[in-house]
């Protein structure tokens, strides 16, 4: 009840009351600044500024104070007559560009805590919130994940406004919309939903909005919170929402009719709906020539298969179906395993764990130490373990190839999902051979087929098969052949007809324009 009361409390015209309530709520905080002042020499009117140190720009504050103290002092005539409301003060006195008046105490406090300056004057039952937000933030750097060889080098930062501006810079279309929302009862994190009106499928934005509104959590510190709270398949290892650090990726997703969710304080932007195959598409594919792009894509699909299945296949072959190994290879494997005391399954799990340990340790350690870890680890695994007769050299190769393949998958979360799936597959095939492998594999496939991401089948357009969307799945077709965006988008047209470049009319000039 009192909570509710506090929320609905409004400013009174007595400055004294207002400051007392505010101080009562905010109490003492070292970064909370109060600046009292007096304006209008005639009426000797008291006023006060509330602001949070570190979140505001000093020049802006000085500008406010200058306006109030210097020009406010110099106002001639009857105060009440010339400026009888904050609306008038805003229009006639203040020079800052972003100002709003608030009547609720709660709004005032939120403003103060998010870097705005609250100005109260005696005799007014309102507050003036002036945007003075300015804080130190990381400059735009190259993203750490999703690196490309060819393509823009800018990545998102922790500042939501910078992030949206990076995308806005790329799409100068009036249909590009940003909707604001605040999530998190305590953190009050800003969230922006970005989409292209007219391109995005009907109802998708409403669905996103609804799911976001349903969130009731104390804090949102990273977009991962949001992802987990709105995804379609919360029990699945597959992530049905993609995240990226690259503004160009977001822009391209928006053009395809997807929705992006920007979350403040994180450089990771969520994209939805997401298809499984998307995790194997790097932005490079689209920037390099299509032959190259297609080739790399195929390499990545192979990497996917290897990283998912290679250890299980090896274990299955070596401990159950030796007849399937070509004879010469079988002799070689057998000779390598001659002195290994463990069953292949144990060997494989051991090595996989060792590999994961190494990866994790290398990642968590301070950078210089991390390198040392990986060097020592690879020495132990590659050389010493084989020499000691603990593992067979073949297993080292299998695990190493698997590891490398899993790094070739551009999306980190997909790579982890695959890595997780590898273990049940490995154990099943080590226990039951082909039967176990087939059973678990089909379970996984059925599961992947059954999940959806915001109304779209996760494995589309492969299953269900959409012939019109095949130009950008296994291969990347040349840009001039992709006439339409993917079929889930409402937009029908991507480019005009006959866009395949050719020299115009026998001249050796540049490509045709138009």
């Amino acid at each position: 009840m009192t909570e509710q009361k506090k929320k609905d409390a409004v400013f009174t015209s007595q400055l004294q009351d207002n400051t007392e309530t505010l101080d009562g709520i905010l109490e003492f905080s070292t970064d909370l600044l109060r600046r009292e002042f007096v304006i209008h020499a005639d009426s000797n009117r008291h006023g006060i500024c509330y602001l949070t140190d570190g979140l505001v720009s000093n020049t802006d504050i000085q500008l406010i104070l200058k306006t109030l103290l210097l020009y406010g002092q110099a106002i001639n005539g009857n105060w009440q007559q010339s400026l009888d409301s904050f609306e008038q003060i805003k229009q006639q006195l203040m020079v800052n560009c972003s100002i709003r008046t608030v009547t609720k105490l709660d709004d005032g406090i939120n403003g103060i805590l998010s870097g705005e300056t609250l100005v109260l004057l005696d005799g007014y039952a309102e507050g003036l919130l002036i945007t003075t937000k300015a804080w130190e933030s990381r400059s735009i750097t190259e993203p750490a994940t999703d690196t490309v060889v060819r393509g823009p080098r800018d990545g998102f930062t922790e500042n939501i406004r910078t992030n949206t501006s990076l995308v806005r810079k790329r799409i100068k279309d009036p249909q590009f919309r940003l909707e604001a929302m605040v999530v998190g009862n305590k953190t009050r994190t800003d969230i922006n939903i970005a989409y292209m009106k007219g391109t995005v499928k009907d109802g998708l934005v409403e669905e996103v909005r609804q799911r976001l509104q349903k969130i009731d959590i104390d804090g949102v510190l990273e977009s991962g919170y949001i992802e987990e709270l709105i995804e379609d398949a919360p029990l699945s290892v597959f992530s049905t929402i993609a995240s990226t650090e690259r503004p160009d990726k977001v822009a391209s997703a928006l053009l395809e009719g997807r929705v992006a969710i920007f979350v403040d304080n994180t450089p990771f932007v969520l994209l939805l709906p997401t298809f499984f195959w998307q995790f194997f598409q790097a932005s490079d594919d689209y920037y390099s020539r299509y032959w190259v792009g297609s080739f790399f894509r195929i390499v990545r699909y192979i990497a996917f298969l290897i990283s998912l299945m290679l250890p299980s296949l090896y274990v299955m072959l070596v401990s159950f179906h030796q007849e399937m190994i070509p004879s010469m290879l079988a002799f070689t494997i057998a000779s390598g395993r001659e002195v290994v005391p463990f069953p292949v399954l144990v060997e494989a799990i051991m090595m996989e764990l060792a590999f994961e340990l190494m990866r994790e340790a290398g990642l968590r350690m301070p950078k210089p130490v991390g390198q040392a870890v990986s060097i020592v680890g690879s020495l132990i695994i590659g050389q010493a373990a084989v020499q000691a007769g603990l593992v067979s050299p073949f297993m080292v190769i299998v695990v190493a190839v698997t590891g490398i393949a899993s790094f070739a998958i551009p999306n980190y979360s997909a790579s982890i999902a695959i890595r997780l799936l590898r273990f049940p597959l490995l154990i099943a095939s080590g226990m039951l051979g082909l039967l176990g492998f087939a059973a678990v594999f089909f379970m996984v496939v059925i599961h992947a087929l059954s999940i959806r991401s915001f109304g779209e089948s996760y494995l589309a357009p492969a299953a269900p098969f959409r012939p019109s969307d095949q130009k950008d799945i296994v291969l990347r077709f040349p840009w001039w052949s992709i006439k339409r965006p993917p079929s889930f988008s409402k937009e029908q047209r991507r480019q005009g007809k006959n866009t395949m470049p050719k020299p115009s009319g026998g001249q050796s000039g540049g490509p045709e324009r138009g």
Partner: protein
Amino acid sequence: MINRTMLLAVSLLMLIMSSGCLGKQEINDLAIVTAVGIDNGENNHVKLSVQIVRPADARGQTGAPSGGTGEPIYSIQATGRTIFEAARNLARFSSRRVYWAHNFVIVLGEGYARKGIADMIDFFTRNHELRMTTWVVVTPEEAGQVIATITGMEVVPGEAIDKLFRYNQIVAEAPGTNMMRLQESFLAEGTEPVLAKVQLRPRGISNKNPDQFGSLDQVVLSGAAVFEGDKMKGWLSPSEAKGLLPFIEEVDSEIMVINCPDDSNNHATLEIKSLEQRVKTRFVNNQVKVQVAQTANANLVEMGCEQPFTEIKDQMTLALKQKLENQVLKTASAAQKKYKSDIMKIGQVFHNTYPLEWKQIHSEWNRYFEKAEITVSADAKISSPVLKIQRFVKGDGLSLKSK
């Protein structure tokens, strides 16, 4: 939904756990057999010899140290009333499970082959471990001895025999008989099985005493064994086997040595690049007539004749034709007269042409085959003298005539 999926997952997991690792065998717990020999043993028993690979020694040291005698193979022998019993008896002294899947070759002793190979075919096709591309050969020696002989350039002798077969088309003197074809010809009506023949011949030179040429036995693949039903009837000589090949498989390459038209002491060698053969059968007056038409395309690869190639080309072609025809006739007479067994798949051709007549006579087909009249017409072409046109330019001082 959550509960049910969980239930499913858990029960599956339990199932897997409880069943454990059934049927699991690590590859290093297997005694990988690379060659099998089957002989007659005493008391109507079967003597089974197997050549087992010792991976550590066959592959050298890969990584971990491993001791051993240094011999790449380990040959053991066991007897039993049936092949399977003998195979199980191997386990009495083999420390590892005998594993058949990588078997390259099955060598049958002549005695065993003459007694009947139906058991063998059944055993080796019933077992899922065995591959169908295993070669099957017959040897006049003791099969066990052939198995145990270290031969060729390969570390594993079984592999050596395997490769002998693969590159067999260079001499083309023995049919490439694998399990699949054996089974097919054994089961099919109107054709009888033929198996390749291997024997041990002192052909190698020992490093220790190089002056004694031929002190080491080598496995030689040449000739064939003729069967009727499952029983071996006798041998085909290499040249007879050569004539048989076009009837049962594709011939890629073959060489023919022909006499020079003017001097039969000198020879020219032709390499046949393609040999097409069409067999037609007719049924006249209750007698089978077989027409074999061959079309050969040959290259001249060695010229020992004096005259220029262009002059004697026609004569050489003629000689080649005759040679081809004789070869087929020789094989045919061996099959018809000597063994009375239709190894040439004539019955199948006849069946296809005269399905109704076949139904009446198929039970006594071999009688008809024996009396069948086989005519051969060969058509040959020497298309290229390869790199050179003439043998040697006269007057260069190098005359090989004296040779």
